[in-house]
């Protein structure tokens, strides 16, 4: 159809506008695809690493903090004849001869004969004696051995919670697929007993995996288990573990969608400006008999062409970007949640399809308003631009009044108690929409306020620049709203990160009061109590507090347990949100009460005097909550209990770390050096000063927000591209008007000043508008999104730099966008411009 030809030629005739729109939508789609691929790769890696040992296991037998007694496996297998099960010992080691790389050690039973687990399957071609005939025999994946430069046989030194050990690589195994290869990349396979020794868990198993298809068999096994163990289904355990990273994933997805929303504004902006510029042509088409439906389809088709091209480019960009983001996301998951080897992006068709659908969908939605605008252009024999601007100005009040609707919906979604995270994000997007409707009225207000100042400063040019903005309101209002939204996103996220960072910094200062912290690399056997005794006897040591970090896995998920052997004074380091140290301490010390962190209380809906159920050595038991404390170390939450309480319920003497309080007159650095060279010499323990530990914590914090910052920058890039394109086309459209000015004596310099002042003013207006919206976004992220995601309380820290940066960014984008049209128009002879209109 000839209308399609008109549309396509229009896109080709404005190559910069079209290309920049394609780049904008491509970047938006790329960010969405990259985040989805990254999240999906992490999920797949998690599933695979889970399945690597568990395979098709339907259930797991899990124990307490020290795992299971291996006798249980023997009893079940030999005495009760349960065959479809296999024991698992898992732990972490480092390879001192290979850059201290972190590896997992997995102990397998060569006689278990299951083929459902990748680890077991990988060893199927080996005879059982391959692992058993040589002492400390170990298997590596073929690629891993090649990467480490190890041949068969060779020696591999490892360092784990059980100390340093020399393993003998007796064979290599091959994985069935690339994904399995990734899962085996940092794995050392040994027999059960070797793994137990390396991980310091002699006589213990991490868990027993079972394949139980018959409900009666499930009931039978459950009936055979001692009280300190639990039979959990694989699905519930896997889900519970994966739930840990859900909020993190949702937040990343929401940020990526924000980039797409900015991309949508870009398409909206391009199409609106394009339709407005062609009003006269559209009116002619209507007069000649083109129907409004045909025009609607034609404009949507134009947008779709840009969208499809953008999406196609976005797929490639997204895949490339996902490779860059993967390392950042993997780091965060390893820092905050669990150890996971993710080195490879899994290109999932579903992720790509989601990106394509969102990209195309966003384009269509963004094009709806301009397409409707085009279809409503009345047929006219004579056309005037002023009518368009009159309509734009008269709609300002109506739009501002209509803004009440999305703002009310936003308020309801954000403020109603018990709202979900999804409702929170939906509320944010409604608020942004409401703001976009208010933007034209606010733009007029800003121009009115700056007009006298501009007139005084720049004379005629200043007066004309101000008027130029309001006289082109039909175009400028959309552009300013889009730029303001993009800048507000960066201001809001910036304030949120600064607030969070400062809150954590302050919390660490109060929480880490000891002078030195010593921790064990693994958590099984941990720190030798004799060593602690020796340290406590050193001159200058005022007191020592020990801690045990452990986790209790169960069908309901994982509970992080923090066991503290502290005196009342050290207990005061906890900052309580509910309850207080004085009232909680007696019950905490002697009364089987626990204190829980704020995220734990939020996720489990627990408060002071409520009870939490934990699986002890003697079965499930209730513990009273004596207080809720602020903690930013874990977003899933922590249950803290006194060591005396812990000892009463769990036979686990291990200590993970200890804190050393020194006398006031002791030089901490010198004492640390003496300690490192003395008592701690040859130990596997890590010594850190209070300052170092705080610095490390902040480093992890900054790493966690690295992805957020990348997305934030990309969002701004998308916005700047959009603004650049829109402002440029607005100015270029006015070629005739500027030619008339030149013909009447305006110098090229004056013209240059006029165009850049106008685009700079638009940038400034957008920057100023972005500030309240940015602040609102920050408050919503801090008090609503963060609360619903993680349950943390954050203090708001407002620093001027975010606001200054926001306005500077917007003004810079405006000035930059004005440069090219200003130069081009100033250089064009007026006669040429007049002739070609």
């Amino acid at each position, binding site marked *: 159809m*000839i209308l399609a*030809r008109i549309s396509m030629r229009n896109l080709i005739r404005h190559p910069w506008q079209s290309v920049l729109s394609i780049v904008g939508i491509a970047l938006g789609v790329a960010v969405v695809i990259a985040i989805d691929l990254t999240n999906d790769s992490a999920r797949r890696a998690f599933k695979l690493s889970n399945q690597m040992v568990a395979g098709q296991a339907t259930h797991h037998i899990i124990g307490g903090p020290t795992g299971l007694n291996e006798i249980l496996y023997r009893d079940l297998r030999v005495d009760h004849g349960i065959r479809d099960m296999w024991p698992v010992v898992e732990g972490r080691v480092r390879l001192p001869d290979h850059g201290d790389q972190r590896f997992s050690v997995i102990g397998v039973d060569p006689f278990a004969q299951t083929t459902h687990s990748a680890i077991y399957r990988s060893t199927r071609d080996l005879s059982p004696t391959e692992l058993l005939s040589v002492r400390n025999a170990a298997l590596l994946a073929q690629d891993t051995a090649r990467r480490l430069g190890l041949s068969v046989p060779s020696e591999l030194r490892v360092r784990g919670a059980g100390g340093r050990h020399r393993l003998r690589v007796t064979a290599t195994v091959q994985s069935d697929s690339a994904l399995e290869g990734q899962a085996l990349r940092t794995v050392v396979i040994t027999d059960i007993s070797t793994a137990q020794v390396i991980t310091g868990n002699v006589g213990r198993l991490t868990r027993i995996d079972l394949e139980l298809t018959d409900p009666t068999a499930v009931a039978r096994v459950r009936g055979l288990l001692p009280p300190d163990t639990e039979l959990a289904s694989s699905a519930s355990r896997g889900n519970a573990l994966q739930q840990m990273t859900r909020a993190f994933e949702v937040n990343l997805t929401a940020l990526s969608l924000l980039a797409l929303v900015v991309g949508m504004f870009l398409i909206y902006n391009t199409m609106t400006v394009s339709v407005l510029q062609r009003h006269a042509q559209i009116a002619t088409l209507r007069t*000649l008999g083109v129907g409004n439906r045909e025009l609607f389809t034609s404009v949507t088709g134009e947008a779709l062409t840009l969208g499809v091209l953008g999406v196609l480019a976005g797929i490639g960009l997204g895949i490339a970007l996902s490779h860059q983001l993967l390392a950042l996301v993997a780091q965060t998951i390893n820092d905050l949640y669990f150890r996971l080897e993710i080195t490879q992006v899994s290109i999932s068709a579903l992720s790509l399809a989601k990106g394509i659908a969102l990209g195309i969908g966003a384009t269509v939605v963004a094009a709806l308003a301009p397409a409707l605008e085009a279809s409503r252009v*009345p047929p006219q024999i*004579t056309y005037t631009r002023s009518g368009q601007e009159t309509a734009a100005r008269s709609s300002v009040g109506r739009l501002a009044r209509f803004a009440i609707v999305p703002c009310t919906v936003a308020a309801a979604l954000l403020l109603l108690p018990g709202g979900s995270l999804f409702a929170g994000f939906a509320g944010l997007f409604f608020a942004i929409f409401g703001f976009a409707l208010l933007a034209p009225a606010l733009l007029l207000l800003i121009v009115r306020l700056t007009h006298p100042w501009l007139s005084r400063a720049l004379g005629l040019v200043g007066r004309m620049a101000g008027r130029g903005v309001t006289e082109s309101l039909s175009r400028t209002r959309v552009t300013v709203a889009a730029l303001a939204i993009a800048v507000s996103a960066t201001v809001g996220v910036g304030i949120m990160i600064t607030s969070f960072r400062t809150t954590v910094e302050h919390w660490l200062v109060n929480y880490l009061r000891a002078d030195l912290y010593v921790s064990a690399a693994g958590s099984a056997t941990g720190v030798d109590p004799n060593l602690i005794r020796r340290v406590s006897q050193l001159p200058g040591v005022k007191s020592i507090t020990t801690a045990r970090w452990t986790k209790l896995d169960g069908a309901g998920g994982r509970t992080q347990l923090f066991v503290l052997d502290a005196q009342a004074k050290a207990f005061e380091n906890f900052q309580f949100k509910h309850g207080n140290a004085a009232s909680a301490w007696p019950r905490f010390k002697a009364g089987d009460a626990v204190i829980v962190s704020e995220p734990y209380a939020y996720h489990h809906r627990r408060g002071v005097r409520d009870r939490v159920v934990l699986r002890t050595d003697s079965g499930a038991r209730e513990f009273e909550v004596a207080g809720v404390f602020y903690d930013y170390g874990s977003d899933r939450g922590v249950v803290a209990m006194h060591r005396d309480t812990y000892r009463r319920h769990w036979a686990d003497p291990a200590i993970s770390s200890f804190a050393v309080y020194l006398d006031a007159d002791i030089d901490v650095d010198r004492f640390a050096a003496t300690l490192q060279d003395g008592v701690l010499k040859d130990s596997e323990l890590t010594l850190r000063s209070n300052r170092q530990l705080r610095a490390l914590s902040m480093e992890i914090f900054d790493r966690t927000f690295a992805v957020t910052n990348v997305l934030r920058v990309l969002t701004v890039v998308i916005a700047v591209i959009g603004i650049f394109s829109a402002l440029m086309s607005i100015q270029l459209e006015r070629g005739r008007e500027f030619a008339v000015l030149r013909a009447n004596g305006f110098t090229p310099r004056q013209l240059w000043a006029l165009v850049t002042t106008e685009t700079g003013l638009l940038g400034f207006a957008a920057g100023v508008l972005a500030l309240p919206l940015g602040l609102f976004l920050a408050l919503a992220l801090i008090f609503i999104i963060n609360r619903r995601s993680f349950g943390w309380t954050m203090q708001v820290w407002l620093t001027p730099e975010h606001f200054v940066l926001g306005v500077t960014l917007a003004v810079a984008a405006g000035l930059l966008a004005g440069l090219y049209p200003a130069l081009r128009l100033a250089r064009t002879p007026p006669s040429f411009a007049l002739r*070609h209109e």
Partner: protein
Amino acid sequence: MADGDPVIELCEVHKIYPDAQRERTVLRGINATFRGGEFVAILGRSGSGKSTLLNLLGGIDLPSGGDIRFNGLSISNLDERRRTLFRREHVGFVFQFFNLIPTLTVFENLLFTLDLNGVDRARAQCRVEQLLSQLGLSDRGDSFPDRLSGGEQQRIAVARAVAHRPSLVLADEPTGNLDRDTEQEVLTLLRAMPKRDHTTVIAATHSPEVASCADRIVHLQDGTLNDAN
């Protein structure tokens, strides 16, 4: 439709525009008949309502009162979509500023109304080639409008208006933007081309030259239409 038969009839047509202060009556009960094949010039001062009358005749706008009938069909009662289809099929337009589609070549501009009316491709191309040949612009078919002079553009616009053989051509100041020599060329075309298909031409103009070419001249004054004779 034969020459002389009524094509369009206006019966007590009023047009009132609501204004901020008061209503502004532009047309006051116009009664008129335009016949097949005639060339009518509507003369009147700026703001007298000439363009408004053309808008009503072309179904672009609706009268505030009265009725407009096209070959017996009341176009005042048609909805927006039907009026669009009516324009597409039965009306051709010539604008003061040519209003060719800048992103289409001359050939495609002429093809446009034929394409809209679903004329098959081969016949449409044949018709366009014929029109270009009549205009003496066969070698400009691949040019875009901005490469043509004002006179050439308006000649193409006239050809576009008659390409699909409408019953009615409405021209709003068709020579308002042209010099005297070019005006004559365009007027010759505007008179000759519709005649072949018995098309009625109604031109709103200030120009005495346009008026002198017309079969009939009517004056629009104070909202009423009066025959010059």
